[in-house]
């Protein structure tokens, strides 16, 4: 199974990189782009057979290592 983990800064946390990207897009003329938040994306190859197990395992490694709960939250997708 494959799991995808999306890690993003919590809404309350200022993202200077996202802000800089938004500023660049605005200066390029993309006035229709509002706020930009930069995040991280992980693809995990998992030995699990069931989607539930894969989701649980991906969530566990996200909790332990991939995301820092002080500043980040995450979302898991499995296929």
């Amino acid at each position, binding site marked *: 199974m494959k799991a995808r983990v999306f890690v993003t800064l919590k809404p309350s946390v*200022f993202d200077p990189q996202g802000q800089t990207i938004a500023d660049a897009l605005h200066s390029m003329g993309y006035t229709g782009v509002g706020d930009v938040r930069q995040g991280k994306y992980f693809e995990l190859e998992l030995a699990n057979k069931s989607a539930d197990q894969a989701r649980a395992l991906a969530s566990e490694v996200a909790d332990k290592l991939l995301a820092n709960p*002080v500043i980040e939250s995450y979302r898991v997708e499995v296929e």
Partner: protein
Amino acid sequence: MKFSIIVFPGSNCDHDAYHAAKHVLGHDAEFIWHKETGLKGADVVVLPGGFSHGDYLRTGAIARFSPVMAAVADFARGGGPTLGICNGFQILCEAGLLPGAMLRNRDLKFHCEHVWIRVDQTDTPFTALAKKGQVLRIPIAHGEGNYYAEPDVIEELESERRVIFRYCDARGEATDASNPNGAINGIAGICNAARNVVGLMPHPERACEPLLGSADGLVLFESVVSVLAAHGGAR
């Protein structure tokens, strides 16, 4: 008195800390590779600066799972004086031995310069010989030193007087202009609730001799030596 200096792959201020402890202060110092499981009779543990594991994923995120960190956590929770400098501070935060986390500097630049920091609290083993409000000139060298914690955690740190160092100007005023990275409340260093674990982004170990441009960092090391000596030396 023995300083144990933890070495992770990518640590690069380990020798500076060793030099300060051994050659400037004249105490015993030993490097501890991160794969070790013991601290070799440490009286003081230093987690030095650098770029452990290349700062991959997040600063300190991988180092905090090194085998030696179980021993560091035991030492710290047992009251042993523990100092995290720069990347060491980041590792202590990731390990949960100190609260909060580091964000990218607000201007996205790596800052490598001397700054002023003010000693706000002296009841830690690393500031016991400093004067409250004393201003130190200490170098910083980091891209992720923008200290962040949830508002309730910041409130707790402030009310429990656990903000130990704050960025300031030469006169000791903590202004926004003197804050190099955007850290909340100008926080440069904090301690744990028991006050024995201290983390700071500036590098006192690089400011222990006048030849290096400042000897203001020496007070941190002299303080811990003095506090341990007052408690009967080696633990």
